[in-house]
């Protein structure tokens, strides 16, 4: 049996078809010496083996037969039938063994990991529609990792995911998904950053959102994060808005999963990132942007007790950048000056 699993540092962009975009990108980040928590990637082949071994192929295709995108009830029923079947199917023993082996390599005493779906062949925005953004945090122990991996697979057949593929006319195409398993960062502060200002389109800015605890609260939109706009050129904060951050996700004290808790009174309104933190984040953002050659949407975390370490847990291309409508067209200095004085073609011509 071939390996279903590869350590993240052995992946590159070309592995995207087999391991999904998220895993491949993390491999690229490691190649670029960007600090990424260690982990491993599970290939799409593992998913196929799972479906095959459990004899689910026919059940899946019959449940999906003749569905139309608008058939809400039909999609709901299909989703339910497939999910139930998958949930009770075993993870193939060979895969389980490999997971156990790679998981053990991440550390002793069942280290907590994040298990995330790693979409194939779709850009990130589509992946969101396709429901392929499942994340299970603070998972511990091989059994629970295997369960989380299976839950990621199940998410391929959530109603929105089916509906999305139906709209593309691909409802019956064999869907596939990779899974990323990564050592969990117990983040004291975490958030996302863009290597441009996605609102204004300014490429000289890094836009940073930050809040307390694990990244879930920011990514899931459960808090209004602190909002910083930092110049790439001078690393100074050009604008900032500090918001009250009422809730955060922290590891469950029982040692499994993440729980949502209230943030202590004073800390709510406190500034989450200091200048030095922002400078470190901007430096990493610039390295990532340079490496990929396009604007990136990056999830980051600062570990509890050592917030001077920036860890990157995910990066993907920025898909939507607004363009300023009145951006002056490139032209000779003289013709631009002429239009300043109303002596040339109008600016928006």
């Amino acid at each position, binding site marked *: 049996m071939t390996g279903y699993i590869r350590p993240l540092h052995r992946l590159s962009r070309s592995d995207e078809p087999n391991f999904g975009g998220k895993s491949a990108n993390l491999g690229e980040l490691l190649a670029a010496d960007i600090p990424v928590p260690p982990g491993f990637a599970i290939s799409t082949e593992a998913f196929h083996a799972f479906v095959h071994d459990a004899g689910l192929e026919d059940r899946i295709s019959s449940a999906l037969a003749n569905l139309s995108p608008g058939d809400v009830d039909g999609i709901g029923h299909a989703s339910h039938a497939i999910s139930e079947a998958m949930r009770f199917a075993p993870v193939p023993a060979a895969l389980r063994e490999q997971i156990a082996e790679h998981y053990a390599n991440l550390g002793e005493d069942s280290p907590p990991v994040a298990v995330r779906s790693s979409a194939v062949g779709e850009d990130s925005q589509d992946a969101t529609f396709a429901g392929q953004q499942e994340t299970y945090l603070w998972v511990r122990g091989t059994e629970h990792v295997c369960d989380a991996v299976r839950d990621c697979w199940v998410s391929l057949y959530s109603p929105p995911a089916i509906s999305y593929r139906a709209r593309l006319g691909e409802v019956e195409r064999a869907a596939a998904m990779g899974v990323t398993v990564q050592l969990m960062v117990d983040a004291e502060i975490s958030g996302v950053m863009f290597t441009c200002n996605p609102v204004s389109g300014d490429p000289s800015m890094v836009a940073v959102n930050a809040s307390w605890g694990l990244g879930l609260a920011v990514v899931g939109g459960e808090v209004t994060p602190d909002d910083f706009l930092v*110049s790439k050129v001078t690393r100074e904060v*050009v604008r900032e808005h500090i918001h009250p951050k009422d809730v955060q996700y922290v590891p469950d004290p029982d040692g499994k999963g993440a729980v949502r808790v209230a943030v202590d009174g004073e800390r709510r309104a406190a500034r989450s990132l200091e200048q030095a933190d922002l400078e470190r984040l901007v430096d990493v953002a610039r390295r990532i942007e340079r490496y990929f050659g396009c604007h990136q949407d990056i999830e980051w975390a600062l570990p509890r007790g050592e917030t001077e370490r920036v860890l990157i847990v995910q990066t993907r291309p920025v898909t939507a950048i607004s363009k300023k409508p009145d951006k*002056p067209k490139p032209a000779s200095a003289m013709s631009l000056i*002429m239009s300043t004085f109303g002596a040339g073609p109008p600016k928006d011509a």
Partner: protein
Amino acid sequence: MATTAPKAGAFPSPYEIETPPGCEGWEEMYPYYALFDERRRETDENRFWFWNSMHFPMPMPAFDVICIDSPYQAVGAWQNRVFAVPPAMGIDYRCINGYIYISGNPVTDPEKIAERAQFFQQRAGYYFQNWSELYGKWRAKMEALIRELGELEVPDLPEYEPDEVAFGDDRNTAFYEVLDAYPRALRLGDMMWQHHFEFLLLGYGAYGTFVEFCKGHLPDIPDQHIAQMVAGIDVLLFRPDAELRRLARLAIETGVDEAFQQGRSPAEIDAELAETEPGRSWLEELEKVKDPWFNMATGDGLYHYYRSWLDDPSIPYASLIGHISALGAGEQIDRPTDEIRRERDRLAEEYGSLLDDESRSSFDDLLNLSRTVFPYVEEHKFFCDYWFLTRWWNKIREFGELLARNDFIEDSEDVFQLSRYEVASALDELVLTWATGGLPLGPKHWPPIAARRKEILRKLGEWTPPPAVGVTPDAVTDPMTIMLWGVTTERVQEWARQQDGGSVLNGAAASPGVIEGIARVVRSVDQIGDVRDGEILVCGSTSPAWAPIFSKIKATVTDVGGVMSHAAIVAREYGLPAVVGTGRATAAIRTGQTIRVDGSEGTVTVL
């Protein structure tokens, strides 16, 4: 030029503004054409006028009106008649309660605009292509003009004309000399204003285009980064303070620094220095620096009371004391020019590299042109507004002394309470009665007029003018209004909203940082002595002469000015938060109030 539908309501009508009590008759100080007159009410009431508090923050003394007329004559001549800026002719001004409101004259006919564009492209193009050469000639012209002003003599009226008049060839009598000298003095002033505006529009236009380009492509770029990329390094305007730093160091090296005690007057310091040999050599060194570097004005130069450092050394001496104490504390006081140059080139390179190739080449082009024009933009103030103008006011003062010696006015300074025509008239009577030996009426006529006007001006100074009058335009489209005053559509809408009151003022974010503190409202430069350490300066605008107080204050707020205004530039140098162009900070904020200045967002909040 877009058509703008007038909208009434937000700002008061210029015809409905009341005269403050005790100021009745203020109109007599100003020319008939400067007033909101019933005979053109229909037109004037339906225009948008904004208070030019950048240049005229205080009510105008009668004589100083010449510094409204001449600049607007000059700027209009270049803008409208030489370069023919297509959509904008010149600027009209009117006076309300002594304060100056201005309004641009648009060109709206598309055919006319196209016709003017032909002229503009050719003529402005010529200037841009030959900028450095033309600017070199300009400097020579200005230096010659300043020399000519220095050579202009204001004659006295002797009991008997000297023998040369009787026995020499081509000698003039004093009556002719006086009547000849006065209009010549006025004419030299006009000449300066003509020079002043020759390059100004084009210089600001080139820079403004670069700013717009940067903001289009890099919408969040801090204004000061744009300025840093363009600003000159060894700019003339930095020389005066550089010389003071050198003198401060010299004082320490030669051991005479003890003389520079806080609270001592320049005269007291000089007296102590004169007692020792090293002190005397330091004073000699100071003399060498004074010409030309002490030709700095203590204000923006448009009022007669903004004297030069030569006339009022308290400002440079305050700087000297500051520099010496900073050096004593082991601080680095030099402008790190190498570092500034490296940073300027680094910013330009980094920002350029963030643009695509095509935009990059426009960016580089505009940046180069902006750097070419910038010496003029920065230096014309030194030549025109400071060096020439402070000396020119002194020349007028000499006529004041002549009138005062003959009791036409009580004090030579009172000459500025008379209009330039009234001064001509007073001089006429003076030389007439000098010649005839008759009894002059002037000593009975002028002193009460001057006294009354000083009182009116004092009271007008306590009145707060609205930021604008007349109709609110839907859009400000006049490129000159936007470029030179920073009065944009948004700014006007903000002013209109603020007419209802409100505790947040908006302006341009000129220097980043947020700070809270006690406000000190300073209406004119002679009040800067009132500013206490750690206060926030709230003023109409500042000029290089205000430099010493920037080391005392912790933030700056101005009524008028853009990110290239003096207050903005200096605030950035000192790392102080600054919000400029709020329109009404001096009106809305009172000394002693606690305010928050957000120089990153451009807001000022009264707490």
